[in-house]
């Protein structure tokens, strides 16, 4: 196992990654279902109703959890995809630097999503 786990995977091992991927999926699915329910059960959405929802503490926590889940889930998911396709077998020796670059960009993107999301959520009053 040691050979592949150390470098880029998110949790400490493939098993952790697997678990994080599942837990984050459940949290995001709950969020998606909840928001869909809220939107569909509100006949005429107004700014008041919408911002009231997001300014509540519980909703902030739920949204934040979803953001963090998203970052972890996307990181692990994109890691699987990149390590499947950007490989030495398919692309030769250039694969390693390309994959590293894509992975760093993607990780940065995920971090930016979380920071941006926090700025939005805590900016609502």
């Amino acid at each position, binding site marked *: 196992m040691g050979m592949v786990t150390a470098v880029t995977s998110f949790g400490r091992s493939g098993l952790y990654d697997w678990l994080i991927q*599942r837990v984050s*999926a*459940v949290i*995001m*699915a709950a969020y*998606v279902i909840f928001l869909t329910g809220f939107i*569909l059960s509100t006949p005429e959405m107004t*700014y008041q109703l*919408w*911002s009231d929802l*997001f300014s509540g503490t519980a909703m902030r926590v739920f949204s934040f959890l979803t953001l963090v889940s*998203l970052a972890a889930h*996307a990181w692990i*998911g*994109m890691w699987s*995809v990149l390590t499947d396709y950007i490989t030495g077998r398919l692309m030769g020796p250039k694969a390693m630097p390309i994959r590293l670059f894509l992975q760093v960009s*993607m990780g940065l*993107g995920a971090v930016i*999503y979380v920071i*941006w*999301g926090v700025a*939005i959520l805590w*900016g*609502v009053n």
Partner: protein
Amino acid sequence: MNNKRPVNLDIATIDLPITALVSILHRVSGVVLFGAVAVLLWMLDASLTSEQSFVDLKECLQSPVAKAVLWLILAGLGYHTVAGIRHLIMDMGVGETLESGRLGAKFVFGFSFVLIALAGVWVW
């Protein structure tokens, strides 16, 4: 390694069973969603900044292009979520035989098709 072993990497000659199709689309939708989150956060920001920006966003979403983009994102999210939930159910050991796997795959397509159609109705 024996480099005379047979390989088949001609994608056009590989016949995808329905279960493989569910899987590859789950992957594609996941990658697309990662980009789509930028659009979703942008919309969340616009919807929450002020009453004015909320109204502006509603206005902006009247355009056919914006509607199409929103619908595509919802379609990707709907599909990825439905296929993802099937994945979780299979992780628990349910529906792992060939027959039930195929049935589950058909269910994913059927259910997400309905959801995506409904999302289209909602957007337009």
